[in-house]
């Protein structure tokens, strides 16, 4: 993606230590100053938390940020588009979604009444798949699955990049997974309670999420049982705008077991799938999705990975992340997705300070 400024990539070492010197000079400040201003004009991180800018307009007002009034004809076309989307597509999709959700709740509750048996698992899979397919149609989703031979198997953990809550439906369209997530209230809660009777999803109470060991323990138990469905986890922890992959939380990679990475890339021309949760709530988000042209995306299943000898969870997480980013054509960023809401940790600043100090001490003849 093109930047708007020419960034000077000279490292701290080259710029400060390279030239002089004794130790400190007044000009040292220029490096930090310029870096700071470059960050103010355009930084790598905050732009990932808002929707991707399109190169050419796709006739949706919401992506009209950079485009101006062009011609009467275009406006007419746009009006026709609005009519089609809101009066024709939206009711259709809404009906389908309603059918999908209702059948999901009813179906899983019915199946949940059965005693545990292979028939139950079969029926549960059937219900989940069917309802998932209905829901995907409700969003006019066109999904291309690549490398289906690498589809996640039982007893494994499926790991994917996160762009929106729809990611889960897109993956369950093609296979059954055990979901992991927080227990919600409202309609979501009803769905969660219904589905867990039919299929062993792992829903956490909010209080439990904070206790990481408990979470890891439950997941470990699930994975150890090879007959259980693969777990679906989004290690970024939050929705990113599908141009990059941010830091993966290492918790998912400490559980053990085989990791099946999956890369999901949406085509932004047809609709923006990114959920900017600070700007839109879930209802207005779904409304936007249902009034887009379509959701077109590519899903790549990748060969399974396991943690190597001597590799710790963080390195493993980074390795998986690189593979996903490369496959999906996304850039990798070492920043934490949590920066959407929280402030950056002081350790990064301390690292910069440490580097600078090293330069002073190394070059200098300090007393």
């Amino acid at each position, binding site marked *: 993606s093109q930047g708007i400024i*020419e960034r000077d990539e000279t490292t701290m070492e080259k710029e400060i230590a390279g030239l002089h010197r004794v130790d400190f000079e007044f000009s040292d400040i220029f490096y*930090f*100053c310029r870096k700071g201003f470059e*960050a103010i004009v355009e930084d790598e991180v905050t732009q990932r938390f808002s929707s991707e800018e399109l190169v050419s307009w796709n006739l949706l007002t919401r992506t009209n940020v950079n485009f101006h009034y062009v011609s009467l004809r275009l406006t007419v076309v746009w009006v026709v588009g609005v009519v089609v989307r809101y009066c024709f597509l939206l009711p259709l999709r809404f009906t389908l979604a309603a059918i999908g959700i209702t059948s999901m709740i009813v179906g899983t509750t019915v199946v949940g009444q059965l005693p545990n048996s292979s028939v139950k698992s079969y029926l549960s899979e059937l219900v989940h798949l069917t309802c998932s397919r209905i829901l995907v149609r409700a969003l006019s989703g066109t999904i291309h699955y690549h490398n289906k031979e690498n589809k996640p198997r039982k007893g494994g953990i499926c790991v994917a990049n996160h762009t929106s809550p729809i990611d889960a439906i897109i993956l369950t369209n093609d296979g059954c997974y055990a979901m992991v997530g927080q227990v919600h209230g409202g309609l979501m809660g009803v769905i969660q309670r219904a589905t867990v009777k039919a299929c062993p999803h792992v829903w956490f109470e909010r209080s439990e999420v904070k206790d990481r060991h408990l979470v890891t323990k439950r997941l470990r138990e699930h994975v150890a049982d090879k007959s259980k469905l693969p777990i679906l986890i989004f290690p970024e922890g939050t929705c990113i705008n599908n141009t990059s992959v941010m830091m993966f939380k290492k918790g998912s990679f400490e559980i053990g077991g085989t990791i099946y990475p999956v890369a999901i890339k949406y085509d932004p021309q047809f609709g923006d799938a990114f959920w900017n949760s600070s700007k839109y709530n879930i209802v207005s988000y779904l409304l936007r999705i249902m009034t887009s042209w379509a959701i077109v995306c590519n899903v790549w299943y990748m060969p399974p990975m396991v943690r190597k000898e001597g590799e710790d969870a963080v390195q493993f997480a980074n390795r998986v992340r690189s593979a996903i980013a490369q496959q999906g054509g996304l850039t990798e960023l070492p920043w934490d997705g949590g920066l959407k809401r929280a402030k950056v940790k002081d350790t*990064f600043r301390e690292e910069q*300070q440490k580097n600078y100090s090293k330069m*002073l*001490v190394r070059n200098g003849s300090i007393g």
Partner: protein
Amino acid sequence: LSREDFQRIPELAINPLGDRIINAFFSEGEDQVNFRGFMRTLAHFRPIEDNEKSKDQNGPEPLNSRSNKLHFAFRLYDLDKDDKISRDELLQVLRMMVGVNISDEQLGSIADRTIQEADQDGDSAISFAEFVKVLEKVDVEQKMSIRFLH
């Protein structure tokens, strides 16, 4: 924009001089900066074009002249805005840049040596003129400019 808005930029928040840079946008006693003020501060970083030098010799100096860029950097050091960089001010800025990694004595001797070298009128503080003299060989234009891509 408020100070908190700037601090939400991660790359700026981890910059050791981040707070000083953010401060440069806000005038005395103000907690908000509007777009105009924002532009005025950013204007210091416009690259210097050759054809501007001959234009308008009688008008006010443009914000991105070498002298104004240097003045901007000078203000980053001059914490109390008295147009002098005292030993204490230099120490404070140095402390921001090195964190906890260098002892007070070492930092003190660095500050002393720097002031000694630059100070010409013997007042143990650096005035703007002395600051300019020290940096006369430095390519300020290149270091303090940000180019926009077309």
